[in-house]
């Protein structure tokens, strides 16, 4: 169990940095926390250098607060804005090369299963729209076709944010961005449709306006990946810099997009549905 490795040996605690000790005493390790409790526990992600008001940064924060098993989770990221925060979180993080997340995660997940057949290790790949749907497209798709058991989260800001605002395959048709000086000529790639076709067992499209719901689907995606196959969350995480959205209007923008083309969609196979129903039932029994 990873919890053991998080905790320092007796007598050693006093020599550790305060930040570390606080994470052990007041962090989410070994506890069931929820994003709705943000502010009541020490978070896995605190400092990060992403832009002020960046919705993606907030998403990453909520993501870490939603992990069902943070002490046994490994996060993979890639080039792109999100990795600036992911790499500073208190959960092991792997950065390989741009777009490789789902291939690296395939090898990693299989190897962890070989080494720890009786322990659950959660693997989550979080990458941008460019990382997953452009440069890493074939690796993303093939990890799904192969039914690799890990979660993929696309933080879709509809642009190459980290390299200064170029068009991506997920940019909406018509928008004028760098490298699309006359506007984008084709539609957003149908990421969630592709995920379903490719065999993902749990697929969500979400504009993260409702933190509780977001937290729930992140947990669900990770739990379903443990037992049934690949899972995918497509989250709209606007880039206020490249799309010139004033910080105070970021949430408003997300709500508008939610009404327009980012309405909440949750797909799951019958097997996964039955699995969640069973969990809900057990929770109710415990409460009763």
């Amino acid at each position: 169990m990873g919890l053991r490795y998080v905790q320092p040996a007796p007598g050693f605690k006093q020599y550790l940095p305060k930040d570390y000790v606080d994470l052990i005493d007041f962090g989410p390790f070994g506890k069931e926390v929820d994003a709705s409790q943000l502010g009541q526990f020490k978070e896995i992600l605190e400092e990060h250098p992403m832009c002020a008001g960046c919705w993606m940064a907030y998403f990453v924060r909520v993501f870490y607060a939603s992990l069902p098993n943070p002490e046994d989770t490994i996060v993979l990221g890639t080039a792109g804005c999100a990795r600036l925060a992911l790499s500073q979180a208190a959960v092991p993080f792997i950065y390989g090369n741009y777009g490789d997340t789902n291939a690296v995660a395939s090898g990693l997940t299989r190897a962890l299963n070989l080494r720890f057949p009786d322990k659950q290790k959660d693997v989550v790949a979080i990458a941008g729209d460019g990382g997953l749907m452009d440069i890493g497209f074939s690796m993303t798709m093939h990890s799904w076709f192969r039914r690799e058991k890990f979660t993929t989260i696309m933080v879709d800001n509809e642009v190459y944010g980290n390299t200064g605002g170029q068009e991506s395959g997920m940019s909406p048709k018509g928008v004028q961005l760098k490298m699309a000086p006359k506007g984008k000529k084709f539609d957003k790639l149908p990421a969630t449709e592709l995920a379903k076709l490719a065999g993902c067992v749990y697929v969500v499209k979400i504009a993260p306006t409702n933190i509780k719901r977001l937290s729930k689907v992140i947990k669900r995606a990770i739990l379903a990946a443990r037992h049934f196959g690949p899972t995918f969350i497509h989250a709209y995480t606007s880039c206020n810099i490249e799309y010139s959205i004033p910080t105070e209007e970021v949430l408003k923008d997300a709500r508008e997009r939610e009404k327009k083309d980012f309405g909440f969609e949750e797909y799951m196979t019958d097997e996964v549905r039955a699995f969640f129903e069973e969990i809900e039932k057990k929770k109710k029994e415990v409460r009763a």
Partner: protein
Amino acid sequence: MPEQKVVDIDYLFKEAPRERHFITGAQAMAEAVKRANVDMAIAYPITPQSEVMHLVGDLYAQGYLKDYYRAEEEYGTMSAIAGASRAGVRVFTATSGPGLLRGIEAIASWPGHRIPAVLGVLTRVVNAPLSIQPDNIELAYLLHSGVVLLHAENQQDVFDMTLAAFAISEMVDVYIPVAVATEGFFVTHAKGYVDMTPEDMKLPPRDPYKAPVPVTDNEVPPARIQRDAPVQKSNFMSYLIHAVWQQEVWSSTQRAMKYIYKYLNGPIEVVNPDADVFVVASGCAAAQGREAVRYAQEEGLNVGLVKIKSIRPFPTKEVRDALKNAKGVVIPEHNIEGWLSKEVKAAIPNSGIVVDGPRVYGGMTLPVELIMEEIYKILGIKQEKKVVI
């Protein structure tokens, strides 16, 4: 599949009995994998490599490996190899020419990730124009990647070097990938005698905790719950850390040398050390160099061979010593650019004694006569051009 017992690395290399088999280079590579206690292999087809990974697939089907799959393409292959290795298992893959180049961004990042993977490189022309023949220009691209690069002359070398590669790559003071290259077809698809260790003996398993950098399995203290990824903090930190890390990777490559001495009898082999003229060669060009030495002996000429087994780390000191009294050096190569020739010239103080070539490329064979011609030129022997009909 026979029950395999784990034996000590040194025992397997130095004492275990050996039995002679007549097998192809591809078989020799797979036979080494069979004895290396490999956990997982990932394959993507390309001629002439495919044969190797077919055989490794058979090993998986027989139970020698625990996992194996055909990946989406080579970039995906090399990235997944990185992921699996970072989780602590022993991994193997192989590729050729265009496949190597497709995977090279990932491969070049393996040393920095401190990934002790073993990579077979079965050489093939790099396009264009298309050819599938054994030109070894692709190895030039690996020279600057930080991997340890061994170059096999024949089937026996393929077996020994591949088995040694697994041991060397996981040494705590090395811990970087080892590539074992040989010429496609000439070695992979041709048979030769190979003295092999028994198939019921294998290397000890990878110990993921015997490592200079922790594996990513959430089981190892010191915990990575320190929120400090300095590379992301500032450009200054990023320069500094990258610089220090590179120094460490390249020092690791150098530290592999002592194990190359231990398990492969050193990075070079010298035939006739007191020769006037040396053929310096690696890979299957060394076999032709060996023939040239035999021809020369029959003609009463004092010619020797320096076979270079390890291209990275490059045996600068050893080559310099071996060539200190040479009057001339001939470097036959299977590529147009002459990467080995550049390495040798940079290693010796009197590079003027080196003849650039002979070189064949596009996958042509390397006739011994071409090497002899250069030897005659150095020795001032005028040769009648004979045309045999």
